Structure formats: C-alpha cells, structure tokens
C-alpha cells in the first residue's frame, strides 16, 4: 500500500489515539475566544509556542469578525433600512472572516499539524464551542 500524506486518507486509515478539546475563554465576555493554555496531551507532539501562536491567531481572527466599528455599524444600519432583505444577496462581514478562518486552519493543518499526526477541526463545525485536536496514532514507529 502506497504511503499517502493527504488528510482525507489519514482520517480514514489512521487510528485515532485521542482527542483534545480547547475550551472557550469567557474572561472578556461572550466574544469568541479560545483558551491558550497548552494541553498536556500534546507535549510530545508539538512545540508549546507553535500551538499557542495558532490559537492566538485564531482568537485574533474571531475578534476581527466580531469587531464593533464603523463598517459593522454601517452594515447593520443598511440592513435595517432594507428590512434585512439585504442579507439574502450579500455575504456578511462575519461570513467573510469565517472563510478566512477556514483557510487558515487548512494551512495550519497542511504545514504544521498533519506532519506531526495531529488534526485541527474548524470550531464552526463544533458550534464555536471548542477547538478539537485529533491525535492520530504514531504509525511511523510501527512500520
């Protein structure tokens, strides 16, 4: 069987050793932020700085999505004036940032996490509650 490096194949063939869940951090209120505390299960797989950097970037992206500022107020007022029918044809600012986040997670998985046998799940697939990190069995030692 040929060695494959794509995430799809890894998901289907590799056995899942464990799953770690990074919970939400509510110290700043209801804004979407995740805890940057490094989970002990990942100590053998990835560098602490690297992981904290990923979570910090994610938090920054979510803060950008939920930022209250001129552009978001303008979008809100325009939507109200058109009786919210504008949402049927326009993509909201939040949705645009969510696409950016999806791309960021894909990049992080491809470059950093997949080579180490880890997989980050986009928080939107878990209702923005957790960042799920799947730890795959380390097959490289077995072969």
């Amino acid at each position, binding site marked *: 069987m040929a060695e494959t490096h794509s995430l799809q194949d890894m998901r*289907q*063939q590799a056995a899942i050793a464990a*799953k770690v*869940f990074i919970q*939400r951090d*509510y*110290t*700043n*209120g*209801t804004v979407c932020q995740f805890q940057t505390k490094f989970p002990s299960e990942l100590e053998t797989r990835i560098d602490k700085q690297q992981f904290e950097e990923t979570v910090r970037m994610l938090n920054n992206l979510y803060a950008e*999505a*939920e*930022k*209250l500022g001129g552009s*978001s*107020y303008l*979008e*809100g*007022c325009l*939507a*109200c004036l058109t*009786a*919210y*029918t504008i*949402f049927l044809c326009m993509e*909201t*600012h*939040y*949705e645009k940032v*969510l696409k950016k986040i999806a791309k960021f997670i894909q990049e992080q998985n491809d470059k950093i996490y997949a080579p180490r046998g880890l997989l980050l799940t986009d928080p*939107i*697939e*878990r*209702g*923005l*509650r*957790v960042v*799920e990190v799947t730890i795959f069995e380390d097959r490289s030692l077995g072969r």
Partner: protein
Amino acid sequence: MKNCEYQQIDPQALSTPTPTPTQPPRPAVEEEKEEERARRKWEVFPGKNRFYCDGRFIVAQQSGVLPLTLGLILVTTVLFFVFDCPFLVKHLTVFIPAIGGVLFVFAVISLLHTSFTDPGILPRATPDEAADIEKQIDNSGSSTYRPPPRTKEVMINEQVVKLKYCFTCKIFRPPRTSHCSLCDNCVERFDHHCPWVGNCVGKRNYRFFYTFIVSLSFLTAFIFGCVATHLALRAQGGRGLMFALQENPARYPFTKTLFWSILGLSGFHTYLVASNLTTNEDIKGSWSGKSGAEDTANPYSYNNIITNCCSVLCGPMPPSLIDRRGFVPVEESSQTVATEIELPMLAAKNEINVEDNCLDFAVSCAG
C-alpha cells in the same frame, strides 16, 4: 474449512449480491446504504423545531399563534385601507395609504425574519466532547472548595458568573445562554420564547424582533391616528361624535388596545437594548441585586446607551451554528468499506462472498 457454497455464478448476478441462507443480510444492507441519499443535518436535528424549504426556514414546534399575529396585522391594515383611506385621501393627502403600506410591509417582513431565523441555537455536544467534559467534572471534584457539581465559575469583567451544565445538550452553557424547554435547544443570548412569532428570540434574531415591535408600534400609532382623525373629521361634519362612532364601530377601541400593549412592549425592549440586558436576565434579576448578591453590575454592558444600542442592534450578524443544510457525514459507510477490504484475509468470517473465495482458489492454483 470455510463454509462455502459452490454454485454456478451468473456474471450478470455478480453486481447484485444474492442473499443465501448461510449469508447474513449484510450485502443487502450495504447496498441500501449506498443507494440511500445523503441526508441534510436538519433532518436529524435533535431539538423540537420544524424546518421548511429543505432546511432554509426554522420555526418552533408550536407555531400556532403566528398565523393569528399575521392575521391580526393584516385584518387591521385592510380595514384601515378599506374604511379610512378613501375618506382621508379625499380630505387630507394621498400619502396616507403610501405611508401605511410601507409600515405594513416593514412590519410583516421583520415578523417573518424573526419567525424563520435561527435564534442562535447551540448544537449539542458530540459524544467525544461530552465524554471529555464528564471526565473534567469528575477530576475537578477533588478540590477543597466544592462548588455544586455541574457548574463552573468564570470571571467576566470582574464579575463572577456561574456557567451551568446542560444535561440535554451535554455542554456547559456559555454566558447568557439558556435552554428553552419548548424548543429543547440551548439558545445564545436567550431573551424569551415568543408564542406570537412562534420562535425563540435570541442572539441572531433579537434585532429582527425589535424592528418588528417598533415598526408595528409605528403602524398601529399611524392607524390609530388616522382613525381618530377620520372620526374627528366626520364628527365635525355636523352630525356629532356619537353618530360617527356608530358608523365606524369597533375599530377604534380595537386599535387602541393593540396600540397601548405594543407600545408598552416596545418601551420595555428599548430599555433592555439601552442597558444591554435580556428579558430573561431582567426577570430573574441577575444583575440588579434582587437575587441577594451585592455589588452586581451587568458585566456585558458598555455603560454607554449609544454603544449598547449599536452593539445589540447594529453589531455584526453572527452565523448560524447548526448548519441546517449541511450533509450528515457518512462515517458509517466509510467504515464498512474499510472492513470489506480486510475481510478476505480473515478465514474465520462467514461474510466472505463466493466470488472472492473462487478468486483466491484460482490464484492459488495458478501460483
């Protein structure tokens, strides 16, 4: 030896595996799964909601009063157009029905948006997530200070906020989230469950709800004013107020009742918006000190009326977290594919089909 049945193999029949007495009905089930179309997530949604247009619209299970709300608004406006507009257009201005029409359309669209939008439902925890949380709860029980089980305390803007564990959704509820028993869902920034709109009012549809009640207040105020003007003009016409009322009965007190109750509700919600509170928090007295705790202030308020209003009504529109129209991941079929590849290597299994057996035999003979 293996339990095989040697029978004439019809090449045409190979594509459709025939279930023989020794074989369990697994091939038939597999084919069923392959033919079964991928289901959308709304079809397997665990809460008590109803979905229309293939998951595009979501309402509560009991949306019985929504038609009544629509009917009341429609009837009042139609009566206004039929009885008052002709007279007022003749005696005042042609803009009267135009303004009435715009307000009516605005109110109805806001109502439909409130009713059919996901209020901010939190999807339930996956089994892995639920197990992880259970583990954490069990582990944390060993500290000296024991908060009641299934609660977690967090500090938000120097206020201690208790997060409760939801037994139905198997998550610790985020702040301001509440579980609606009618819809059986946890809803973010839960305000209340409104039977008039047939849906919960939460984070995602509060602005639509507020727009609805404010535009409805304007509509009823406008109709009330027009009806009063109509009656006054007719009374002035020489025959007196009583005769005018006799000619146009019922609409006047009806509109008056509607107007005051909706105006009261709009006023209440304007206060809530300005102080960044939810109906749920106001009723429970979470931040007003009624519950006995001292020095409690609303940690979510920006302490500025304009900022509070802007953040609640004009803030960024959060996405729906339940992904109604997404497809249910077919993890079961990928597992059956994996096991099918492994099966020919295991001699003890009865599920090996005849084709593979004969192929192995042929290969062994040739080799």
